[in-house]
């Protein structure tokens, strides 16, 4: 299983039947493929609807996701304007948001919207999502392409939101914030505690229940 699929598969286990979920672009969009058949989630799209589904057949007029791509919708979909979309997001009506990260730290801070002087795409809806969603799950590769740590003592890049991350899923490990502390709860198949320690700059504790990920 490649890194992205492994991460998507693990994050899927965090979602419960009936959850309202906003998935960031890229890796998070793979997650629905890994949901058990008895878990039905409602996808929120920040451009203004609840009930997003995969594209089936020809694109329909004005039916696009937050990445501007044609998509589908399920029976019982509801469209609304951007103020309502973010009332839902900021107001705690989204059970989980899953999004990528450039850096995450042991305080639950996330940085994923700019690299000063290099890449400044803007925060889009990410700051509201990370501030308002009940669960904030960062789904990302464990280290940078150069092998540098992305899970840090303290983010160096500008923050998306302070202290809001609830879990981190990588191809090596699954961490959860428990009572404000970063806790390693699962290791990926074949990955040792030492390898995770070596590739993680943050201070964290290893859960007494720490075990290997169960992947479907």
């Amino acid at each position: 299983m490649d890194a992205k699929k492994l991460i998507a598969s693990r994050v899927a286990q965090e979602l419960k039947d009936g959850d309202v979920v906003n998935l960031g672009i890229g890796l998070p969009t793979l997650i629905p493929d890994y949901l058990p058949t008895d878990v039905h989630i409602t996808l929120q799209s920040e451009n203004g609807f609840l009930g997003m589904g995969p594209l089936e057949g020809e694109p329909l007029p004005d039916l696009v996701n937050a990445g501007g791509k044609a998509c589908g919708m399920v029976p019982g979909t509801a469209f609304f304007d951007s103020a309502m979309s973010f009332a839902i997001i900021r107001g705690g009506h989204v059970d989980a948001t899953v999004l990528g990260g450039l850096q995450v730290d042991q305080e639950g801070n996330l940085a994923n919207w700019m690299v000063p002087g290099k890449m400044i795409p803007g925060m889009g809806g990410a700051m509201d999502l990370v501030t308002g969603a009940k669960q904030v799950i960062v789904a990302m590769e464990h280290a940078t392409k150069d092998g540098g740590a992305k899970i840090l003592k303290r983010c160096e890049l500008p923050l998306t939101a302070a202290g809001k991350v609830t879990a981190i899923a990588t191809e090596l490990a699954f961490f959860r914030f428990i009572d404000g502390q970063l806790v390693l709860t699962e290791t990926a198949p074949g990955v040792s505690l030492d390898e995770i320690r070596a590739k993680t700059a943050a201070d964290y504790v290893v859960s007494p229940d720490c075990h290997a990920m169960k992947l479907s």
Partner: protein
Amino acid sequence: MHTEKQIERSAIRKHLHDGMSIMFGGFLGSGSPKGIIQEILDAGIKDLTIIGNDTAMPDTGIGVLVSAKRVKKVITSHIGTNAETGRQMIAGEIEVELVPQGTLAERIRCGGSGLGGVLTPTGVGTLVEEGKTKLSFDGVDYLVERALRADLAILKAHIADEKGNLVYRRAARNFNPLMALAADFVAVEADSIVAPGEIDPDLVMTPGILVDALILSGEC
């Protein structure tokens, strides 16, 4: 059928001038009024401040005004899909004010609703809080985010009636209904224009009194 509100596309020009601020509906081009944007481009006005969710792509939606260097300032949540906006920003040719998307929606809504601003937790502890008033209630910090208005709003509707009542379609709604409240002049491009009474009053998404000019879309 022509009414007082329905105008030819070119008639929008008398409401255009250098240096003006323009709010544009749309999310990556979906729900942006292509015909009106083309008219603004053809009119040659410059030094614009544009306000909207994103700057689309260099050759789509509002992006064409950026590519043609008509824009002095952008107030937006995202420019990542338009490399030309990023290039001009880094070159110092364009000023970019990045605003969290939900905050942008609220600021525009406030501008149209007589509200001075809102208190939002979004942006607390980030660069976004710089220079802003912070208030704390019940242990939660909020930023005071202020109202935003523009000289002109350009919107895209699916159906309009001659009084200006609007219905949007699917994800093309996005910022359009908010901007209808928040500009001195509101121009709407619609796929069709019907007689008053043809839209069920419960289904109107923007009341006609907010709309100043209706332009029939060339496409549909």
